[in-house]
């Protein structure tokens, strides 16, 4: 009886015969359940998407392996050559065998995964921040819309790979000088990917913000006198989270592929710096002799992208209220 019905609601005087007063709230079973945020519903729906769950599990497993892998495998064995154990097949000591310089492939895969995933995540984060910022500004402030959308068009019209290549060409040296090789190139690649991939997010976010701006709760906030910046942070941003999340998943995938494409074109990390793209690139000549060398990094890239795509798919479904149902 904790949630007995509203004491203050007037009860029609002469209708005492018709109107019940105590038993009513019981008709609302949903209200008796524990407070749940909408994310629980999303999670519920997400859980029912088998592909997405499998994808999430695989992705987390890979992330786990890559993050905690160094506890079990000596990463040095993937970096240092070992002439006594060249071109070994799979064995207990080397689960994925060794490469032509006797480096443990498993350790290399883990080391490569750390970089690839870090690049994927950071580049995605950067592109999301940029995309969201521009999308929200353009969508919410009518005056900024024109210029910002032209700006977005501009970036969309610039062909990306060349732009990326030019960026790498231009900034490689200054960044390397400023931050050291690995950090410098990491920053460069993350920035290059991030800066060239925010436009889709911006467009989606802008579209959503435009629609959101017309929603009554934004009007309600204005009628309260909430200033624009708080309307944006309090009412608009949380509500564009779902398209952003979907963009995020796809963004990781694209970033990982772009990084490997850059490595493939010889513009990514230095050759001795394993990333999945670089490993794949190195392994390709040996595809017939030692198929595993190209297969494992290729499979890792594909698997991550695949699982993330499935997660994105599931998220999209879960975040779509029409599908989520009521």
């Amino acid at each position, binding site marked *: 009886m904790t949630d007995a019905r509203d004491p203050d609601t007037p009860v029609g005087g002469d209708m005492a015969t018709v109107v019940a007063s105590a038993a009513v709230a019981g008709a609302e079973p949903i209200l008796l359940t524990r407070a749940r945020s909408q994310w629980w519903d999303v999670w519920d729906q997400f859980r029912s998407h088998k592909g997405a769950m499998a994808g999430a599990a695989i992705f987390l497993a890979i992330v786990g392996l890559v993050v905690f892998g160094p506890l079990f495998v000596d990463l040095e064995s993937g970096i*240092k*050559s070992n*002439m006594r154990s*060249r*071109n070994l097949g799979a064995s207990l000591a080397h689960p994925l065998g060794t490469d*032509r*310089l006797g480096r443990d492939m498993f350790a290399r895969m883990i080391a490569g995964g750390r970089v690839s995933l870090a690049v994927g995540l950071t580049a995605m984060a950067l592109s999301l921040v940029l995309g969201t910022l521009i999308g929200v500004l353009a969508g919410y402030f009518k005056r900024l819309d024109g210029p910002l959308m032209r700006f977005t068009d501009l970036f969309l019209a610039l062909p990306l790979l060349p732009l990326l290549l030019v960026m790498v060409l231009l900034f490689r*040296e*200054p960044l390397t*000088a400023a931050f050291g*090789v690995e950090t410098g190139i990491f920053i460069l690649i993350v920035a290059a990917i991030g800066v060239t991939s925010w436009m889709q997010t911006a467009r989606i976010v802008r579209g959503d913000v435009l629609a959101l701006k017309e929603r009554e709760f934004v009007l309600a906030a204005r009628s309260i006198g909430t200033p624009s910046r708080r309307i944006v942070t309090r009412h608009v941003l949380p509500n564009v989270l779902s398209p952003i999340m979907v963009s995020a998943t796809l963004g990781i995938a694209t970033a990982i592929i772009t990084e490997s494409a850059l490595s493939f074109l*010889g513009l990514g990390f*230095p*050759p*001795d710096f394993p990333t999945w793209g670089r490993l794949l690139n*190195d392994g*390709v*000549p*040996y595809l*017939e*002799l030692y198929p595993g060398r190209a297969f494992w990094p290729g499979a890792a890239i594909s698997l991550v992208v695949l699982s993330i795509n499935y997660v994105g798919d599931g998220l999209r479904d879960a975040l779509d209220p029409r599908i989520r149902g009521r």
Partner: protein
Amino acid sequence: EGHEGERGRDGEVSILYWQAPSTMNPFLSGGTKDVEAASLVVEPLARFDETGTIQPWLVDEIPTVENGGVSEDLMSITWKITPGLVWSDGTPFTSADVQFTYEYCTDPEGGCAQGAKFEPVESVETPDELTVVVNFKEPTPYPYTAFAGGESPILQKAQFENCKGAAASTCTEENFNPIGTGPFVVDEFKTNDVITLSANPNFRFEGKPAFAKVNFKGGGDAEAAGRAVMQTGEFDYAWNLQLAPEVIAQMETGGMGTTVVGFGPLVERIELNHTNPDPALGPDERSVIRPHPFLQDPAVYKALSLAIDRPLLVEIGYGQAGKVTCNLVPAPEAFNSSALECSEQDIEGAKKLLDDAGYVDSDGDGVREKDGVELRMLYQTSTNAVRQDFQQLIKEWWEEIGFAVELRNISGSVFFGGDAGSPDTIQKFYADVEMYANTFNGTDPQSYLGGPLCSKIPSPENQWQGENIPRFCMEEYDELWAELSRTAAPEERQRIAKELNDMYVSNGGQIPLVHRGRLSAHANSLGGVKLNVWDSELWNVADWYRIGE
């Protein structure tokens, strides 16, 4: 070879160069790909055969002191052009063309890539239509540089007359379709893609070439090229398959083609930069400002060399196609110095050298330093699987003795492209050390040994053309080389050459790694291939034919 018949009887031959030629004018590009593609069309007066012996090509005999072709004072050489030679367009080939070629390449505005060949030449005279007299600035004991070998072929005066000097680079049509005396003429040239050629109807030999057409495809990578010849049989000839030995072996099991190996003077080496490549110095100064912060210290470069396990490099990188060498000039054998020894790796020795010289790791970061200068190096090379393995191994060895090494690889077409606009060419050398292979045409190393002269340093002033890529500069060396260039007696020449070799290597000009054979592949059905490491690989393409038809 008993293969005879009419010209063009064997249809088409397909040649695959995984570096795509961007021009057919070898004077405008230093790249082997361009020189060799051009060798199908334009020819020099004399070539070197597969044994390294000079052969008359557009002349009847090789001029020597004995036959009077070379003057006693070694100041001139007289070439007698074979009478009746015609260009592919039917016009006669005359001494004027030869003279024109000299003028073309020596025009200061033309930016000729083969300038070194004409360096000793004072003037070229044409007493008559078929006689060419080359006068040297000083006594030149080895006079077969100008107009000999694939890198200095003859251009047609009529065609290039208006393309001299500054205009050289705007003559697109001419540069893409030069008229030559060679077995083939260009039908179509697609930059960086494919060249279609057909047999030269005015070629001087009856019944040659056997092929009516050449499909010269460029681009891709060595691995795809090897595959296309040995595994799928799509191409007849693939050039310079620099691949790991096991990959080559695996490809050969495809059964469509065979590899051919030849050892010329090609040496895979690490060049040590004698100038300061610090990016802070600005793009054009950094490779001319001397000296390098530490690389000229004998302890440093000796240690670097000691730390390298060359036999292992040969084994994993080249297998059959490689030998350990410590020399700049490993071939011909008469010029191969035996004074230096380097086949033993000695990490401890290297460390000791550095310790003794005062390079110690005082701040504990694993990198030695002296006077505040850390032993940090950028090590660049072209993108190529074997080179990346070498980089990796060498980097480890060097790091073991206390260097910090950053690796960098650059696409081959840029690295070797010689494009003055690119910062990533071997000539610019914006790195501390770089690794590549180099060689010389012909059997005499004089001009090659002239590479390290102080005057050959590539710099903005000479638009980065010049062989002294390490910016090595040593008076004694220059003097000794001058002596070589005055000496005619063969034994004496060999002695001086070896001495130069030793002086250069032991003074830190470079660290030789592997004496490399050239490994190319041709289809089993392609006959007549004689791998020539002393000249263009395609030197005898006129004799190629199709087997078993």
